[in-house]
């Protein structure tokens, strides 16, 4: 993710990558030779004095808290972008948000839930807000991949933090973004690997308006060449919306269905790498840094996702203990 964001930030107009921090000695030395004009350091403290406008934290999630704290303590820059999720556990996320609240820094603080920058999900959100005024009956957010369909090795599962932190957090953030803040209700089913990583989970949530819905996540699902994040919303009047990374389909209360593919939604960006969402995300973030206007999801918004992940994980652990 570091290389991806560095590449994209380097082409966003008025933005240049000037320094990279890499602790691994081999990669550090190579980076020095590979990246022309970029200062390569091995400690965050070495960023001091570079007058950076922003730092993007794209390291493993478990390291986020210490890095964010070091950047803020050493006043390295005023704005921060952090890859999702905000931190390795909810306590760390809460402490980061407390720091923001008490110090006012980072001024612009954004977490990389890139699906918010996908044209299809933007259209889905717009349709939910404009067409579902009669009331939503139920909803489902999901995140599926085949990453561990046949995998027996637990090390990778554990290092990625389980499906909920790795992939499911996208479904939670996307659903909350489209339908309002969510509260956890109960776990329906779950699947945990021998080493204790969550492989699949299906749990009930409730939206701010008291509507019941479900979040499903699995990285052992069949036939997912790429991960898929999606959303299904149904109204009391028979309307139905389904959205995934490629298309949004809306059926009105007369039974007429309309589909919008990415093609129909002006998906082109100035630069394309790993799809168009990442460029849009980075460009809008840099614009936020330039204008001082906050960009969602902020650290505080991302904390809500981490709270749900935490309570679901604890509920699953409790169920296992009880068995």
């Amino acid at each position: 993710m570091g290389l991806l964001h560095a590449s994209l930030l380097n082409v966003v107009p008025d933005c240049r990558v000037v320094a990279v921090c890499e602790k691994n000695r081999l990669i550090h030395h190579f980076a020095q030779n590979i990246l022309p004009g970029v200062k390569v350091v091995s400690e965050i403290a070495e960023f001091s004095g570079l007058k950076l406008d922003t730092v993007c934290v794209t390291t493993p999630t478990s390291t986020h808290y210490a890095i964010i704290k070091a950047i803020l303590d050493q006043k390295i820059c005023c704005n921060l972008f952090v890859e999702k999720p905000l931190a390795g556990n909810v306590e760390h996320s809460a402490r980061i948000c407390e720091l923001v609240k008490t110090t006012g820094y980072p001024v612009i603080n954004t977490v990389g839930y890139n699906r918010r920058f996908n044209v299809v999900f933007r259209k889905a959100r717009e349709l939910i807000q404009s067409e579902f005024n009669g009331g939503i009956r139920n909803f489902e957010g999901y995140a599926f991949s085949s990453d561990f369909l046949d995998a027996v090795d637990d090390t990778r599962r554990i290092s990625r933090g389980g499906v909920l932190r790795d992939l499911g957090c996208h479904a939670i953030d996307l659903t909350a973004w489209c339908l309002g803040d969510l509260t956890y209700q109960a776990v329906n089913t779950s699947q945990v690997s021998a080493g204790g990583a969550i492989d699949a989970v299906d749990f009930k949530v409730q939206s701010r308006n008291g509507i019941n819905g479900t979040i499903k996540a699995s990285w052992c699902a069949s036939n997912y060449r790429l991960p898929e994040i999606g959303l299904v919303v149904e109204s009391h009047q028979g309307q139905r919306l389904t959205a995934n990374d490629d298309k949004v389909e809306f059926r009105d209360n007369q039974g007429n269905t309309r589909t919008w593919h990415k093609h129909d939604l002006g998906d082109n960006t100035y630069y394309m790498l790993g799809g168009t969402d990442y460029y849009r995300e980075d460009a809008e973030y840099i614009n936020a840094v330039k204008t001082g206007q906050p960009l969602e999801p902020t650290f505080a918004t991302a904390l809500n996702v981490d709270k749900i992940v935490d309570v679901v994980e604890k509920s699953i652990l409790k169920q296992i203990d009880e068995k």
Partner: protein
Amino acid sequence: MKNKLILVGDNPFHGVSHVSRDRSLQRDGKILDAKHAAELVALSIKYGANGFTFTVSPTTFSILQDIGNIKFANNVALYPLFPNVNEFVRTAGAAGGLPGLAKDIAKKIATTMDTQMLGNGIKGVIYNNPEALFKAYVKYEYLRLHRIIKQGKNLTLTSMLLHEVVTDMALALDMQWLFRAHIDLMRYIKLKPGFETRNLPYFVRQFEKWRIGFDNIVIEAPFNPIGFQMCPSQADCEQAAQTAQGSEIIAFSILAAGYVKIPQAIEYVNRLSGISGIGVGVSSEKQASETFPMIKGNF
């Protein structure tokens, strides 16, 4: 007039359908079977394709082995893309990130036992020389391809193209050295240097800035009538194709991932100057028999 390139692409053989994940899921497992994929490639060639563009992978190597046994009427030009980025991401994930991936690549290079390549690899690691390491890796991919292709009857390795993810990251990070290293090595082994990109206008600007000529450079880039994935815009990409005179531009995504029909796609590509080839994937015998004669007759 020079023969236009009509390449059969390998995306469907990896389960790719950009327009719809549903469509990918609906496809039966047959399309992902290397034997069946090889039959489709052979059929596509019979119906008018004169080349094959693919990402290096066990599936495509198996396809090459199978089609290498067939005697075609004409030579089949091969335009492989490397590295296999999906495999790299998987390996990096399993082996503990970039250092693990580097070790895995080094191990693979070492087992090919080519002295010059080994020398480059060792030089690359000892002297932190990314160019030497890159060349060792390209040579490793070249030898893997060469070993399969030399057994084939009509297969001709024409170019080796740097995969879009590497090309576009290197473009963005101003890594001029990587482009020069690839071009030098390709010319040394008498192949056309190739690059796949989704950012053709940026690619052309960078090459102009670095004063790298376009002569005999193969570029694969998306071109379609609706401007899908033509970044930043259709007009900019068309202009860039005109600017890159001397290069061999191969248009892919001409059907905008199944969103437009073949006649419309061909009509559009025919209107553009500077396009010397097109790449299209097919997922069934019926599609191959309909698609390639139509392209051959109209492109």
